[in-house]
Structures are given as C-alpha cells and as structure tokens.
C-alpha cells in the first residue's frame, strides 16, 4: 500500500469552542488496510477530531483530507461510521433499521446478516442487549462496502468475548483493504491496532506503534507484600504512581529516587526497571513538567 494516497490525512487540525480548544494541532494519517487507534480519556478530543474528519464540524485551523479531498457528502458515501451512541433508532425494529440504512445508501440487496442479528429481526432495537446493538450498528455501517471505517468507542461496555468478536470484524475489514480509524478509552485495545495516536486535552501526546511509544519512558516496578503502604508513600510524595495488579509502578524516575522515598516511609520493597505501559505514558503526559 503506497503512502502516497492515504485514505485520511489530517494536518495540524485545530478546533475551538469559544475559549476551549478541543483539538490542538493534531496530525495523523490512515492508509488502506491499516487500523489506527485513537486513545484517550473522555474529553481528550477524540470525538471532536472524528467529527472534523467526517465533515460534521468545521476546522478552525489546519486541513483534513478524506480520499484526497475535503470531507463532503461524496466522501461520506464511501465510509462507514459508527458513532458513540450507535446511531440506531431504538423505537424501530432491527429489520426496520437495516431497511432504513440500506435505503439511505441505495443498497438494493444487503449482504447476509449474522445469525444474532437475523434472529432478532422483528424485535425493537431498544429491547435487545448492547452486544446485539453494537453488532447491528457495525452491520449497518458495512452494508455499502465502505473503503473507510470510522468507529467511535465501538466496544465500550461489552464483555470480553463480544469485544473480541467485534475486533474480529474490524480485522476482517482491514484485511480486505479498508482503512479503519478507531477511538477507545480501553488502553488494552491498543494491542489490536497497527498504529496508535494518544490524545490528552486535545493534544497529541504520542504516536506510532505501541513499542515505539513506550520505548523512551522509564518505569520502576515496586514489588512488596505491603503494596498499599508503598502506594500511599509514593502518592504522598507526589509521584506518578500507577498499579498493575498488586504491583506498584512509578513512571519517569530513577530507581534510586524510588528507593529513597520508600526507605523514608519504612516500606521494604524491591525495585527494578520495566517497560512502560500506554496508560503510564498518558499519566506522565498529563502532569505539568514534573520533577519531584
């Protein structure tokens, strides 16, 4: 796949609402067959960026190109979009929702629906569970065989098996050549993406593969039976502490410094250097330039 004509090209996009800058100088590219994950908490600016790409919001600065042109109705006809709220009509049946989307996109013969959806055909969307709703939203977005998929938090709230199934569908689409832009606040889903873009407070915090992003960050892992005491001591010292299981981790500092704090609090522990996680990268990025 050539990098010459990426499906999505965003260059230094800026979007403000009054005094509030929702998107602050963000650039990204999505190629055909690539899954790009936009990671960030609620309020980071992911959804606003999506809306800029879809042409639902106007830019205040920078440029957005979809299929090599500015977002338009024509480009929207070539992409499938699943918003956070799923975009389904809860007071219509599953079948009626499919009919509506098929009619809107001019799809005369929709592809065969997965079993779970076909079985629920006559039920109101408001009455089926979230798992089926999400799969229906996916199915509707894929009806017109789009070349680009834009998914805003597609797996929020579903159980691990259903989440895996949704990702199966996403991978299938990418393997047949579609580009996929996914947003999520589950850091775990990063492993499902080819490339990542981390956002916080409207800004790009990091970009690249998971390995590239976490490469430069130092993290110290603290193993001790009294993990609560260690956690407390390090938090009290104002250090960026996170938890993985019962293991306390501190990002961005040297082992010696950690040892000092723990010794001062009389907490016996062993410390060692470990690779960073994406969440730690985000936490570090959020802090004002920290030096304890």
């Amino acid at each position, binding site marked *: 796949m050539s990098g010459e004509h990426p499906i999505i090209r965003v260059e230094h996009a800026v979007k403000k609402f009054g005094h509030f800058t929702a998107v602050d100088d963000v650039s990204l590219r999505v190629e055909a067959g690539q899954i790009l994950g936009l990671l960030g908490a609620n309020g980071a600016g992911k959804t606003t960026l999506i809306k800029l790409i879809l042409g639902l919001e106007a830019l205040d600065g920078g440029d957005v190109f979809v299929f090599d042109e500015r977002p338009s109705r024509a480009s929207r006809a070539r992409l499938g979009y699943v918003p956070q709220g799923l975009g389904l009509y809860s007071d219509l049946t599953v079948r009626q929702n499919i009919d509506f989307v098929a009619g809107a996109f001019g799809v005369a013969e929709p592809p065969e629906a997965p079993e779970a959806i076909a079985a629920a055909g006559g039920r109101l969307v408001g009455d089926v569970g979230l798992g089926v709703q999400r799969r229906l939203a996916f199915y509707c977005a894929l009806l017109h065989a789009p070349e680009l998929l834009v998914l805003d938090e597609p797996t929020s709230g579903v159980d691990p098996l259903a989440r895996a199934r949704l990702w199966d569908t996403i*991978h299938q689409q990418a393997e047949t050549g579609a580009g996929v832009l996914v947003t999520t606040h589950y850091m775990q889903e990063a492993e*499902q993406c080819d490339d990542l873009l981390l956002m916080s407070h409207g800004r790009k915090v990091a970009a690249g593969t998971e390995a590239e992003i976490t490469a430069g960050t130092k993290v110290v892992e603290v193993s001790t039976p009294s993990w*609560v005491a260690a956690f407390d001591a390090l938090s009290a010292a104002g250090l960026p502490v996170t938890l993985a299981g019962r293991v306390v981790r501190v990002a961005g500092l040297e082992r010696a410094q950690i040892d000092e704090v723990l010794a001062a609090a009389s907490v016996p522990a062993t410390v060692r250097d470990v690779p960073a996680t994406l969440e730690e990268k985000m936490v570090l990025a959020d802090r004002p330039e920290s030096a304890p």
Partner: protein
Amino acid sequence: MSVRPAAGGWGAEGCTVRFTSARGVVTALSDISLAVPRGQVTAVVGGDGAGKTTLLRVLAGRVTPGSGRVSAPDAHDMGFMPSASGVWRELTVDENLEFVGRAYGVRGARLAARRRTLLERADLLDAADRLSGRLSGGMRQKLGFCLAMIHEPELLILDEPSTGVDPVSRVELWRMIAETAATGRAVVMSTTYLDEAERVASVLVLDGGYALYAGDPRNIGSAVPGCVVRGAAAVVAGQAAWRRGPETHAWFAAEVPAGSEGVADPDMEDAVIALTLAHDARAADPRAAT
C-alpha cells in the same frame, strides 16, 4: 464455584432475579452468591447485561431477589454510587456534599471535617464551589465517590466508578477505593475493565446472569477448563478463536492439539473469553464433558 458470605458477613447468597420485560421473562441473575468481606475490595466484572448493576442493586436493597438471601447493613451504614456518578449537576460540589451529608445526619463540625478530608484526598478542594455539571468526567466521578463516603459507611457499593474516566483520575479513584478498604470497610465495585479486576482481592465474573468465576483473580487462569492455544492451530478453530492483536488465540475443551502451542497461564482477558466459550458450550450441549 461460589464464594459464600462468611457468617455475619455481608453479601448475597444464591440470589435469583427474574424480571418481566417487553419480551417475556428475563433472568437477570441466576443463583449468584457474592461475599463482600471487610478490609478488601471485591469486584464484579462483566459486560452490559451481565447482571452487575442488578447484583449491586440487590445488595443495596433496591431489588428484591426471587430467591436467595441478602445480608447488608441498613441505609445509614451503606454508601452507594450509581453508574452515572449520582451527582446533582445543578448544585456545586459543596452543595452536593451538604445535601447528602444532611440526609445521613452529618452536619456541623463533623460535616466540615469530612468535607475537608474527602475533597483533599480527591484533589477537589479548588473546585469546591464549581457547578458539578461543569466538572470533567473524572472529577465528577470522584465527587460521586465522596458523596457515597461522606457518612463513613460500613459497606460501600460502587457501580462502574471509573468507566470512561481519564487515566489520572482513574488512578486517584483507585487510590481512594483502596484506602477505604484498608480502613476496614467492605467495598464492592463493578467494572468492565479487566485490569481493575486483576488488582482486587476477590472477583466475580458474570455473563448473562451466570457466574463464570468467583475467587482470587490470580487463579482465574487455572479455572479455565480445557486449554487456551495460540498459533496455527488457533487460526482454524473457527468460532472458538479470537484475535489478540497480531496473534490468534483459541479455546479447546480437551487437551492441546498436536503441534500447537498452549498458553501456560492465560491472562484475565483470555481466561474470561475461554470461560465464556466453555459456558456457552455447556449450555448448548449439557452432555458434553467440561
């Protein structure tokens, strides 16, 4: 496979909850037991529709089960944080605290002291007179936690306290939750984040109203019947396979098929997926040996 409440402890035992909805009778919980001991955090994990909220509401006394027993303190000794933070958006942070405090009989000097402690720990002191509708999601969740804790309850029930919250606030929330348990109270929380479930003392994994696993999250891997494999054999396993990034994993009911690589200690995500598949298989064909 259940964790029964210790004598005199809090929790639910053998609870079944069935509702009549638009489409007939729905079983929200099927013979579920959950112990919520003091001094530790207990987690209930599952996707939407698994029954997490129903179970927490059973504990809180908002739902009466069709069968089974519930042991919980009365309203004065219980704190509850619903999944939408339970904060009154048209009131400021201080006004929220005052309202809830007074409802629980916390006023005057005691209210002032609790307010100070809670807001300090939650890093919300600077926002004390801001409208809570204007707080960020993470700050609102932290406020919800403070409201649930204001009267120092014996049992704290939190429904998805950190869903969607930014990483920094999530860590702070977790710290507040862990500290609360450390002071000897009983804390039960529901979550869809598996990494949170990994760090609690005891977890209950629900799916469609059924319990898939209950116990120490560190042992969940060994509770998976059959085996989890990765690699070539997994790719052809059809419905029993799932993607983990570039890899494909699959679950087999029997032993590891020849020539494929078994996953020695499946992590929580693999374990939950495998347990769900195993449960589905049993339900579809009860004769199949696990």
